Structures are given as C-alpha cells and as structure tokens.
C-alpha cells in the first residue's frame, strides 16, 4: 500500500482544485438542470456541493423555444429549451443575492448570440465578486445562429475563447459539444486560446418522432440528448480530452450515482457535473458526494485525488 492509503478513522479528502478554484468536493450541477440554485435548495443544503453552476446566461433575457421542449427517450431525454434565461441584469438582481448566503463557489455558465455578446457577457461577469468562475458554452446545439459554428469548428472556438479570455479576470471553463468527429481537436484549440479548464460533454443532438401523429416530439425538431443513455460516449470523450490537454477536465454526461461519477474521475476528470439526474432524484448530488466518500474508504484511499486518473491500463 502506498503512502496515500488511508487511516480508517480519518474522513477521506474530497477537495479538488480546478484552475485556481478550490472545491470542497468534485460534485456540481450541470448548467441548465439546476436553475439558479434556489429551485433545489428545499431538498438539501447547497453547501454540500463542490460548486454551483447556474443556467446559461446571455446579455438580454431570452424567451427560449416553442413547446414541446422536452421528450423522454430510453434512459435519456431530449431538450430544446432554447437557452431561455433571465439575462445578466436579472441574474445579478434576482438570483445572485440568494446564492450569496452559501460558501460554495458559483460558476456562471453563459453564451452569446454573437461574438461581441460573448465578450460583453464575459466582461459583466468578470465584475461580480459572487461569481468564482465562468463556464463558456460554445456548444449549445439548440441555438440556431452562432453557437453551433463555434462549437464544432476549432478556429471559431479559439476565436471566441480568445475574446472572452481578454474580457475576463476569472477562471475560464470552456464547455465542449460531443457532436464532432474528434473532440481532442476542439479541446486543444480552446486550451491554446486560453481555457483554464474544459468541461465535456454537452448534449448529443437527437430527434424523436411521435409515430401516432407523425410529428417530431420536440417543436424545435432536434433536441439535445442527455441522461444515462449517453454516459459511455461522455466517458470516452473525457478520457480522450484528458489525454490531449494539460488543463483540468470536468466530466459531464449521464451521471446518476457515485459509481457513474467515478467512471469519469478514474479516467482523469478532476470534477464532475450532474445534469438530468437531478430531475430523477433531487437529492442525487448529495448522495453522490456521500458515495464518493464511501468509495474512498472501501478502496483504502484517503484522498480523492488519488482516484483521479488512476485507470489501470491492462
């Protein structure tokens, strides 16, 4: 047994560092599945989380897509919310004050409808002391103008990251789409352009048909597939990105329990985000934190950092 092996009386350390952020544990919500935090506050103390990632923000409020916006699929769901959000002003006015009562770092996910808007939102977020880091969504498959191009083209992605980086004095997490041939190309492009961490994956583009009406089940046509169905794709991409870049990687996609989260940590993710599972069980995240602690004990490890990237290649 190595020196990292644990004294069974001590609580294992779950804290991780990501791009200068200190998280008390590696578990956070995925943007868009946890509102602005307040929605889930009745179910557990948000200070049990490593971080709080808020719904994707744009400069102005956005009304989102027509309905139906969601459809359930086998062990997954499609969504085309259309990035509905209150806009940065209302976020500052109505949402941030609530989050101030917690000691957990707030990570603000955001996007722009144009290059300039990306820069402008970054600048505004940069000023907010309550925001510990930002997560740049270049990968939203549901916004038809803008987003889609940045997310799948390495040059465009680098351009927006460079711009945002210039306007920002906080850690910058860049979130990637899985809908690409080679995610490592995207990862390297955003790393070079100044990303402090990479978060992957966003949703896979999918479609579902109501066969009785012969209509698409999502008004938008396509939607983003999330939930346990996509986990194997997410784990593979996180593994690839971890090999390809030097910045820390945050793993997302289909995590429902501690074992799922551990798949990502073991292949090298420094932290994880939980999305759709919050809908299935509003207490999924605190249960995952407890489960990670138990896993460390079972594996006789006193630090989760010894688990991260500990995949044995046979």
């Amino acid at each position: 047994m190595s020196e990292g092996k644990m004294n069974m009386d001590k609580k294992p350390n779950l804290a991780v560092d990501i791009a200068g952020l200190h998280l008390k544990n590696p578990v956070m919500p995925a943007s868009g599945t946890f509102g602005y935090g307040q929605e889930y506050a009745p179910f557990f103390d948000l200070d049990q989380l490593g971080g709080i990632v808020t719904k994707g923000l744009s400069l102005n409020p956005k009304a989102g897509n027509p309905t139906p916006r969601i459809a359930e699929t086998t062990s997954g769901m499609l969504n085309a919310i259309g990035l509905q959000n209150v806009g940065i002003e209302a976020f500052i006015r109505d949402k941030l004050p609530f989050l101030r009562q917690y000691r957990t770092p707030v990570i603000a996910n955001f996007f722009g409808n144009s290059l300039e808007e990306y820069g402008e939102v970054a600048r505004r977020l940069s000023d907010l002391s309550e925001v510990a880091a930002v997560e740049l969504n270049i990968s939203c498959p549901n916004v038809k103008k803008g987003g889609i191009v940045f997310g799948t083209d390495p040059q465009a992605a680098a351009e927006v990251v460079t711009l945002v980086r210039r306007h920002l004095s906080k850690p910058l997490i860049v979130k990637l789409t899985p809908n690409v041939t080679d995610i490592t190309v995207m990862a390297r492009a955003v790393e070079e352009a100044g990303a402090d961490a990479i978060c992957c994956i966003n949703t896979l583009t999918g479609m579902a048909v109501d066969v009785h009406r012969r209509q698409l089940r999502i008004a938008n046509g396509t939607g983003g597939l999330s939930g346990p169905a996509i986990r194997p794709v997410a784990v593979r991409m996180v593994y690839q990105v971890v090999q390809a870049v030097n910045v820390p990687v945050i793993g997302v996609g289909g995590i429902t329990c501690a074992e799922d989260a551990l798949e990502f940590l073991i292949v090298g993710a420094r932290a994880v985000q939980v999305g759709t599972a919050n809908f299935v069980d509003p207490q999924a995240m605190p249960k995952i934190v407890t489960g990670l602690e138990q896993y460390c004990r079972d594996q006789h490890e006193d630090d989760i950092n010894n688990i991260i990237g500990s995949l044995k290649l046979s």
Partner: protein
Amino acid sequence: MQNFNTTILSNQELSPGYYRMRILAPGFVAAAKPGQFVMVRVSGGLEPLLRRPFGIFRTGFLPADCDGLPDKEYVEILYKVVGSGTSILKGLHQGDGVELLGPLGNGFELRPAAEQILVGGGIGLVPLYMLARELVKNGNVRLLMGGRCRDDILAVTEFERLGVATYVSTDDGSLGEEGLVTDVLQRKLARYPEAAVYACGPMPMLRAVHELCAAGKVPLQVSLEAFMACGVGACLGCVVKGAGHSETDPHYLCTCKEGPVFMADQLEWDLLEDRQDGCGCGEDEA
C-alpha cells in the same frame, strides 16, 4: 416541498383503466393546497427515466398503528393508465417503496363567490376534490363532471359526500346526461352568472370552458398539464404560452412553478396546443 422516500399504502383499480394510489407522506396534510401536484418516480431504476406528475386528489390521516403514536398522513393520487410509467405504477402493491416529490406548484385561488362551479373532464377531476373540500365551507359548490363514457366518471360520490351538487354527462350517454360537460356549464352559467369557475380537463374542453366564461365575464381558473422533467422550475421544459405571447415577442409561463393553475387571462388561448397543454385524456382523440 419535500422528497419522500416512502411507501405505498394501497393501489386499487377505480374503474377500468383508472387507479387510486394512497401513499404515506408525513407532513403532507398541512403542506398541500388544492390544485398542487406531486412528481412520482415509478421505478427505482432508470427506465422510464423521468418522474411522472400527478395531481393531488386528497390528503388525509390514517389511525396510527399503536396508541400514543401520531396518525399517519397520506396523499392520494388518481391516475389513468396511458403509457409505460402508469403501467408500471398500476403493478405496484401495498408496502412497495416509492419516491414522491411535493407538494409542487401553486394551487387554486379560493375566490369568494355565491356559486362555485367546478368543471372536470375525465381524470381532470383530480385537483378539484381538495378545492371542493375548501369551497363548501363558504358557499354552494357544483361539480360538472364529464367523460367519454361511464368508465371516465370517477369519485363523484365522494364529492357528494362533501355536500357538492354533481352533474354528470358523458359523450355516449352511458352515465348521466348525454352530451358535453360544456353544454351543462352553459346552462349553469346562464342560471348563475355570478359564479366563479375552476376547470381541469382536456384542452378542447378547457378552451370551450374559457370561451363560455369569457363571454359571461365569469372568473375562470384552469389547471394545465405539460410534459415535465423537474417539476420545480429548474429545467424550463414545461412552459406554456402566456397572454400576449407572440413569435416575435415570446412570453412563456412555467407550468410547474407558475402553474399548474392559471387564471384564464394569464394564458394566450389561441396559441395553446392540444398536444401538450391539455390533460392527458385529450391525447386519445388524435
């Protein structure tokens, strides 16, 4: 609002395809308001993935198992078997575990009115029972209950026991009057123009109810349905078009959080979709 990891007390077929499930839920009696709903996880596994929303039919107390212990609080749902989730639900037994999130959403606003008229279409009856229980305290309450056939007419006796006057109609005349529930409403509104109306049912019914009430300037509250993922306002999947909505200037309301009960004038009726926004019973008509 709480997430209960709890137990099924009973689960019985009420009429063909309709079930009533009683679930242990400490604290629910004080917490739940008429018109609220719960999200039920029908399986401990991941398929089906999402919880299913069901209106709260009623809450109540069961005597405790032993003297000295507090009575057991329960919540009751009535559900129609329509797909995978409700099929699993109907197979559950007394003593089985179940996860329940609630009470969720806003409820009905109890409007003082000399005549209170409740309009229920099929399973849309569900949220009206607790409402009736409150309203009978301060006035006359009438329930107009409609369905396609007699199997769709549920729990009417329970309303009668509260002192509610009930009027049953079915499309095929197999129970009560033959015809639409809105025909009955039209007559009642003619007679009680000062009424307040509360309705839940398929969208075509709600639309007709809205038109009658709007014409008569009668205040109307409706309880809507929408596909839901979270039930708590986090996913923004369940929105409906609010009054003034247009494609260029969209205005959405969140059914789970700002609803499921809306004042009729909060909604953009012309743009509401039968497909999603009505109650499940409308589904079959396609």
